């Protein structure tokens, strides 16, 4: 859990998209090849579009690469004409028609190149987004089929970040980095070829700058990674401290700890600064050094090119072309290194998403799965055993027989397995041994949807979504009339307060539903359960956030509602359950006592002890007055 949280936190941090600065450490995928292959699989439907992107990219790049050499020819012609004029050759001059031809040719090339580069970006936009859409949609379906175990064991932040952030990374990479990669590779190869056709010697000089830059950069990158790691660590500490202090603001204030809190913050902040500026500085140095190496190449091209021209080995225009090639050369090489990192991070992102897709799904409904035509609500647990973790038995050999219309209360200390019972009943989790039947039918033989529609559930954790109050109540059932909604609200004693809200039933609950109180939220969830018209009702600490007076009102409403329906009530307050037909007292996963209120009191066991501790504290607490 804590590990996962840390993971999640670091993910919430500054890792926004795969666009790392230079020299930052990269997240690596566990199975790079496999994940890559799988990701490529998603691109298959678009293979023809991808193919045209490839062609467009190559064409646009090739045209760009060709132009410096052609431009050089113009310069050469210009120079020749000028030299001839200087030497006084009669009738000599600049060959303008020739230059015009070249200029027009160049204009054409540039136009076509830009056009292809636009086409490539344009097509890629659809491919990238559609692919990401497809994968997200697959996750969407997957989430429906995943068992509750998955959701209980993963933090929500983690799943969210996989579906949203990680997929955004994939989308950005597909959109930009992929074509950039092709472009860079084509450019590098193309430039080398072009340069070779001009002068192998000078090509050698330019290519020599690559090992030179690697040689200079390697120690720097290494160091920068160390500083970035330190920065990341301090950032995590800082975020943790801020989170802790702000969530505990009340206590910090009450115990006068502001000073200590600020001191600790300053301390971490100072550490962060120290690691931060070094990381920033070193990564900032990388660019100038690349420029430096590039400039050295440039200078040598000028010198050696100049000498070669004087010897007549190459033309003046060739120097110009060479300068342009040398300038363009270092950029793509730089980019290839950068993109390699980005792709690595992207594959790691994709892998995280695929991990979700590979989670084990719920057992499918068997072909013979049936529906209950007119459910009554008899529930039986036969020798049921269940454990969340392999080596921690929770429920062992539980037997339970509930007749239609009975109300069953479950009490016991936290961790006794009360909620687990509900989880099993609704088949959120699969039992390891024994069976659970409804109306005599094993629940594993009933369609899941069918099974769950038998239940109405109200939980302690009041879940509402952003939408109107009406929509929230209507969530329980398809196609309900307003009248039914109002009636359900009335039955839940929620109608009154809803109508006092400015927009009544159309009031929009905000994200945290903080515009209504906890108790009011609970009333809405009760209304929702009422509207669903279940055969079996489950109330899991349903009224714990409502004060006891309101609770009584709700219970009155429920008495009426529960008539003839089987109900399971989990409660903290014993007052809530005294009238239940059967009270199950659970402890450590087993039912230790069973019976109605009176029986259990007469037994003078655990239940009786619990019950009396509520108000007869005379024996433990002596009042002085």
């Amino acid at each position, binding site marked *: 859990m804590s590990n996962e949280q840390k993971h999640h936190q670091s993910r919430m941090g500054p890792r926004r998209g795969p666009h790392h600065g230079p020299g930052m450490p990269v997240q690596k995928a566990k199975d790079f090849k496999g994940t890559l292959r799988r990701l490529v699989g998603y691109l298959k439907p678009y293979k023809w579009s991808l193919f045209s992107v490839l062609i467009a990219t190559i064409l646009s790049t090739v045209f760009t690469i060709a132009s410096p050499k052609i431009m050089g020819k113009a310069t050469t012609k210009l120079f020749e004409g000028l030299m001839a004029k200087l030497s006084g050759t009669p009738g000599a001059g600049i060959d303008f028609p020739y230059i015009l031809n070249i200029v027009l040719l160049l204009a054409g090339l540039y136009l076509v190149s830009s056009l292809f580069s636009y086409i490539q970006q344009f097509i890629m936009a659809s491919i990238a987004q559609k692919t990401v859409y497809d994968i997200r949609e697959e996750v969407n379906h997957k989430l429906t089929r995943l068992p509750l175990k998955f959701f209980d064991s993963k933090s929500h932040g983690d799943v969210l970040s996989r579906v949203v952030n990680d997929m955004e990374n994939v989308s950005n990479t597909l959109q930009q980095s992929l074509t950039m990669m092709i472009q860079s590779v084509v450019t590098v190869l193309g430039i080398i070829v072009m340069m070779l056709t001009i002068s192998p010697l000078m090509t050698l000089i330019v290519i020599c700058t690559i090992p030179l830059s690697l040689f200079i950069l390697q120690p720097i990158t290494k160091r920068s990674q160390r500083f970035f790691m330190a920065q990341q660590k301090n950032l995590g500490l800082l975020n943790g401290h801020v989170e802790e202090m702000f969530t505990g603001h009340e206590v910090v204030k009450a115990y006068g700890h502001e000073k200590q809190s600020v001191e600790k913050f300053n301390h971490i902040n100072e550490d962060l600064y120290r690691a931060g500026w070094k990381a920033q500085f070193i990564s900032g140095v990388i660019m100038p050094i690349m420029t430096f190496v590039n400039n050295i190449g440039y200078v040598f091209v000028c010198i050696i090119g100049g000498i070669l021209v004087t010897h007549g080995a190459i033309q003046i225009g060739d120097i110009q072309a060479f300068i342009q090639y040398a300038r363009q050369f270092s950029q793509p090489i730089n980019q290839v290194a950068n993109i390699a990192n980005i792709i690595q991070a992207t594959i790691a992102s994709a892998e995280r998403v695929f991990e979700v897709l590979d989670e084990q799904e719920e057992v499918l409904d068997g072909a013979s799965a049936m529906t209950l035509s007119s459910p009554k609500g008899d529930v039986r647990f036969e020798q049921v055993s269940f454990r969340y973790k392999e080596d921690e038995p929770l429920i062992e050999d539980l037997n339970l027989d509930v007749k239609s219309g009975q109300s069953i209360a479950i009490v016991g200390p936290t961790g006794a397995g009360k909620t687990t019972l509900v989880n099993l009943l609704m088949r959120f989790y699969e039992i390891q041994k024994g069976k659970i039947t409804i109306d005599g039918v094993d629940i594993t033989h009933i369609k899941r949807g069918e099974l769950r529609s038998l239940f109405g559930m109200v939980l302690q954790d009041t879940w509402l979504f952003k939408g109107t109050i009406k929509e929230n109540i209507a969530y329980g059932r398809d196609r309900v009339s307003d009248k039914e909604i109002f009636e359900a609200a009335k039955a839940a004693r929620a109608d009154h307060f809803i109508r006092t809200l400015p927009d009544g039933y159309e009031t929009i609950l905000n994200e945290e539903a903080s515009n209504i109180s906890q108790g009011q939220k609970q009333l809405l969830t009760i209304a929702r359960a009422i509207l669903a018209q279940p055969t079996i009702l489950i109330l899991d600490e349903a009224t714990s956030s409502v004060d006891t007076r309101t609770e009584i009102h709700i219970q009155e409403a429920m008495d009426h509602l529960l008539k003839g329906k089987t109900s399971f009530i989990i409660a903290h*307050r014993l007052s809530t359950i005294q009238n239940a037909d059967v009270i199950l007292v659970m402890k450590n996963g087993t039912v230790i006592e069973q019976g109605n209120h009176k029986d259990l009191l007469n037994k003078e066991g655990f239940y009786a002890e619990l019950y009396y501790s509520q108000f007869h504290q005379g024996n433990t607490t002596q009042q002085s007055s």
Partner: protein
Amino acid sequence: MLKLAKFLKPYKGLIIAVLFFVFLQSFSNLYLPTLMSDIVDKGIVNQDIPYILRIGAIMLGITVVAVVFSILASFFSAKTATGFGRDVRKTMFSHVETFSLQEFDQIGAASLITRTTNDILQVQQVYVMILRIMIMAPMMCIGGIILAVSKDAMLSLVVIGAMPFLIVAILAVMRKGMPLFKLIQTKLDRMNLVLRERLTGIRVVRAFNRSEFEEGRFQQANRDLAETAIKVNKIMAVLMPIMMLILNFSTIAIIWFGSIRINHGHMQVGDLMAFIQYAMQIMFSLIMLSMIFVMVPRASASAQRIHEVLNVTPSIVERENDGQIKSAKGVLTFDNVTFSYPGAERPALTNISFIARPGQTTAIIGGTGSGKSTLLKLIERFYDIEEGHILLDGKDIQSLSLKDLREHMAYIPQKPAIFTGTIKENIKYSQEALTEDSIRRAASVAQATEFISRLEDGYDTVLTQGGTNLSGGQKQRIAVARALAKESHIYLFDDSFSALDYKTDALVRSALKEEMKEATVIIVAQRVSTIIDADQIIVLDEGKMSGIGNHKTLLQTCDVYKEIVSSQMKGEGIA
């Protein structure tokens, strides 16, 4: 962004250094083509190899100097940007720590956290980029233009003429793209929301068989996002090709017009070659600048959020002339107190009057939202009241030093705050210099000894953030132990036993009774059993006192109380 610029003030010197070195660096880089043109025009034309070598050596020297300049610039800009981030963070955090709950609620803890961490980081990173690129781009641009004009004023008209095209193209694309970028953000938020709701409500979704419905909602959000993203990317697809096209066409124009001017003897071939390179550098700096403009709006939203926090003035502050209380007796008096939360229609508490004395327990009971917790928070002066007075030993708490006031009280909130650290450290939180014995004693009164001793490392067990490795009841007991360790005159319990089962609850309270014989105790509770023995019980109903007295008298005089008691004791409950 500009509002936060004042934090750059201490770095004035550094920034000037950055400007200076970036200027030198840009100039050196621009000077290289000029030297190159000399090689061409003098060296090559005159076939003067020694000259070529000499100029080449100078170029090499300039390259070395340029890299030194840029390393220095990077050094100063790194110090400036991270220093800026550090200072803003520091100011922000100290500022927030002075907030009373009023200001705190106004923005919300979660939002304050992201503002202090992510938002500041975001702004800091943009400042790094600004110092690195945004300063260099205009210098390259202006420097390039100056050199171009000095080489050949006429020909530089081509460059100057091309610039408006470039700027217009960038602006036009941005204008179409920007709103869509914002739209993408909202669509992403929407998808986040839909998914988060589905994850947190998974039990409800499944129980009500609404998986398909949720799938549909997500699909809708997903499709919306994909469609908008496609639209944006198709628009943005125009940008790069257009910029390249303008760039390349101006190069062609330079060649053409350059040739004409060369023909007329106005310039030389080397100048033309240098000119092409200047034009490239000018245009590229403009393109880089356009990238920055994409980043700045995002950061300025962050800056705005930071600024908002810094602009909040805490309503409750420590003042110079605040009264001091050396040794409090602990008599608390509420005299006709009325309080509303900011912006609320109705007061949360109305006309509350009572006296809580040392050696007595005052209990407060009432329904949800009746104002019980608010009352305790007023005693701690987390909020200031607008009417009436709250007195400690006869002195208005608003006239007392905050530190002093809180020094005399131990407050246990509803949600126990557990901090990262050992159990021991958590208990010691209230009193740094606590002996081992006192820690154990506090824990034993809070009935925490048993579960602590069962933990592997006992008191040295490290608790995770928020105490996720403890149960709710265990956390509450640690919070109680922490409060006890302080040995105050006034104890304020805000429903602090709610997660305990009845038995432990009773045990804790009876042990507390012994501990707090001399102290003033105020307990807020939901359970009647918790407060049944209190010396006085205050019954709150919708912020008003509907009764005060002990259990017996209230049963006879107060209807609300009677109702509460009967709801819990008799259980007319469920059929």
